[in-house]
């Protein structure tokens, strides 16, 4: 079966597979960690138990998602060496320290305070516990910053020289970290994580509103999530547009693939809404296009010339079909999110936010949309970078480890089987927890021990809800 597949292709497939699984969890936990910090902060500030109840509910889900993120992330940190060792040797001096800083400033912070956040409320008291929650949230954001600096450097490398053994050598760390695409990519990714979480939380809230259970908690969740969607979705579309313009400047070939521009357009390029990219014939079949719009969006001028893929040697084209479609999926979801956000504002103004069942149904449907958008966005940017690992400097084909194809094939199959089993089970547990809120209404909050001398009811709550779980 694998005779026709070489180690490079298998390694690429393995990387795509493992990173796609991995990225879902950080995208979720970045947003969820901030949400938890907000919930606990509101609880401490307002003393309203609804926030504490929501905090405990999402904390358990966070623990599951975070655990899956950790184990799939460890795989990533070793895969650079096992499958992409030439890349590691050459680019290690630049991106290695960035990832080293990620571990030193973020991973330890998250891991160190995660234990306190999950298990320590009755040991450290609410204030220190809130501090631990904040540290976990800050850690996820710091982590995103470093990993996006590393990724952006691979997309738009800057601040380096190449030494006599072919290694990238850092010359100016400031230029390495704040490379041309980094700020755009970081903002776009963090907003994506917040939107992803908002739609998950909103979907769960809407689900419970539809079921008519736990109305106060469900209303609160749904309302918070819809504020987030209404405010962040338009900002994200703006940020995405800025990012696109930056990409046009530094990675024009990627934009050509995203837009499906096989041909150069000397006097105004059309926007291709839909069509089927045909790389063999170098054209988009069945294209539905709006004349001049692409030039207007990208150059703010109807007649601005735009170069196409015909201006680039064919062996340097990224796979156009994948990039073309993943980009459209991402954009479509972005606009769907915006619509939900605006719809929720309208309902809020009418005072029907908690009653409009069609809005709730739409929100449930859109619950997982953020994950799809994040994946589509990453496919766009990563596949669009091909055939390079370090854009313009190091080809993917020259980055791969000198390892036999059967070894990569064996590990690939093992990862596929294990990931589907392990993360399938995890997804099942998370969905079950999300659906369980009304049946597990935490009665302790009303009739449990009251807070005395800075001791919260968390201990009683934890052990009781624990026995509850085991009893289900």
């Amino acid at each position, binding site marked *: 079966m694998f005779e026709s597949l070489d180690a490079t292709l298998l390694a690429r497939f393995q990387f795509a597979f493992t990173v796609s699984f991995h990225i879902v969890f950080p995208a979720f936990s970045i947003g969820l960690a901030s949400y938890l910090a907000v919930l606990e902060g509101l609880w401490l500030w307002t003393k309203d138990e609804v926030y504490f109840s929501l905090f405990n509910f999402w904390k358990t889900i966070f623990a599951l998602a975070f655990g899956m993120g950790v184990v799939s992330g460890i795989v990533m940190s070793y895969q650079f060496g096992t499958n992409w060792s030439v890349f590691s040797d050459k680019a290690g001096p630049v991106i290695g320290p960035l990832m080293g800083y990620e571990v030193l400033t973020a991973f330890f912070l998250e891991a160190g305070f995660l234990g*306190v956040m999950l298990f320590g409320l009755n040991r450290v008291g609410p204030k220190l516990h809130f501090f631990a929650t904040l540290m976990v949230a800050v850690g996820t954001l710091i982590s995103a910053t470093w990993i996006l600096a590393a990724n952006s450097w691979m997309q738009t490398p800057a601040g380096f020289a190449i030494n006599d053994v072919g290694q990238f050598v850092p010359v100016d760390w400031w230029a390495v970290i704040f490379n041309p695409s980094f700020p755009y990519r970081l903002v776009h990714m963090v907003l994506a994580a917040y939107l992803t979480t908002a739609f998950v939380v909103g979907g769960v809230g809407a689900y419970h509103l539809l079921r008519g259970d736990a109305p106060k908690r469900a209303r609160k969740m749904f309302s918070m999530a819809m504020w987030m969607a209404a405010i962040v979705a338009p900002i994200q579309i703006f940020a995405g547009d800025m990012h696109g313009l930056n990409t046009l400047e530094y990675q024009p070939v990627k934009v050509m693939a995203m837009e499906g521009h096989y041909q150069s357009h000397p006097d105004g390029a059309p926007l291709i809404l839909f069509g089927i990219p045909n790389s063999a014939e170098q054209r988009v079949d069945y294209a539905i296009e709006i004349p001049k719009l692409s030039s207007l969006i990208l150059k703010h001028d109807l007649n601005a010339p735009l170069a196409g893929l015909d201006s680039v040697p064919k062996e340097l084209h990224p796979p156009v079909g994948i990039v073309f479609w993943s980009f459209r999926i991402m954009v479509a979801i972005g606009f769907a999110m915006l619509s939900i956000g605006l719809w929720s504002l309208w309902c809020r103004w009418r005072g029907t936010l908690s009653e409009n069942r069609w809005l709730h149904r739409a929100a449930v449907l859109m619950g997982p949309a953020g994950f799809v958008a994040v994946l589509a966005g990453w496919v766009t940017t990563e596949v669009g970078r091909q055939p390079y690992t370090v854009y313009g400097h190091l080809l993917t084909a020259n980055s791969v480890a000198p390892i036999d194809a059967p070894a990569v094939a064996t590990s690939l199959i093992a990862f596929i089987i294990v990931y589907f089993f392990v993360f399938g089970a995890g997804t099942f547990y998370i969905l079950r927890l999300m659906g369980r809120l009304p049946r597990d209404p935490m009665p302790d909050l009303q009739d449990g021990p009251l807070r005395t001398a800075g001791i919260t009811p968390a201990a009683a709550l934890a052990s009781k809800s624990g026995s509850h779980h085991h009893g289900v």
Partner: protein
Amino acid sequence: MAFDLPFIWAAIIAFAVLAYVILDGFDLGVGILFPFFKEKHDRDVMMNSVAPVWDGNETWLVLGGGGLMAVFPLAYATILPALYMPLILMLLGLIFRGVAFEYRWRTRRGEFLWDIAFAGGSMVAAFSQGVALGALVQGIPVENRAYVGGWWDWLTPFSIATGFALLVGYALLGATWLVMKTSGDLAARARGYALKAGIGTLAAMGIFSLWTPFMEPLYFDRWFGWPTVAFSVLVPLLVLGCFALLIQGLRTEHDSRPFIAALGLFVLGFAGIGISFYPYIVPASLTIWEAAAPEESLSFLLVGALVLVPMILGYTAYAYWVFRGKVDPEEGYH
């Protein structure tokens, strides 16, 4: 240059790896001992004794790997392909045991499944790490900045033996951890396993002390050449001292002593391996200076490491202190 940056970094990476081996060693050890405890209640307590800290422990492994890529990229790029299969196995093991910490509490019907995942994953991870260590000690051929061996070269009687040795060693760390962190019947049984694993660890250290010097002339010279021979003479005495402390702690029920003694054994064994290697980072192929990243990379990360590692040690110590003392069987957020 005032400072020998590759040397400083070799010391830091060695420290990170040692921290990993000791810290994840005891929580992997708890998983290795899981099958010996059948009672659900015992297993709950065992798992809760490491649940708040395992994630931080495993982060040292990421630092070891990520740090190696940053400061010794050539070592990273040659060791990892050479140890391809044991490392993939280790990762798969770590996946199963890592998720078991959360999954196990989310199901009653499937609990046995995640018990197996926790115990099996811990064993596979520990064994693979031992195999990887053995494969590294026996040497990795490098030409033109790349590994030139096959993908089964790691598999030898020596590497299999080191795999089993590390399994026993981690079991000792896990058992002494349980002695320290639990009480009653569970602690009493852990004392029994600590004694057995302690004897096993001592035997393994003896066997490898006799085996390793004859693997490679480099090691032989190091073990029996001056001044390192002083270490070769002194270490067996220190090892026996640690072993005596272990026995004494188990007998007199000074419950933290056996753990400290087990840590001592690991530090000594680790130092022994380090002294055998130095100045090689990929034995017999690359020295730390040949494998080191350019100075700009080393100094950039060093600034951060010097500030951040003490902070990390500080709040890690705080996290352990928060969960100090014997595990309360009623506790845990689940």
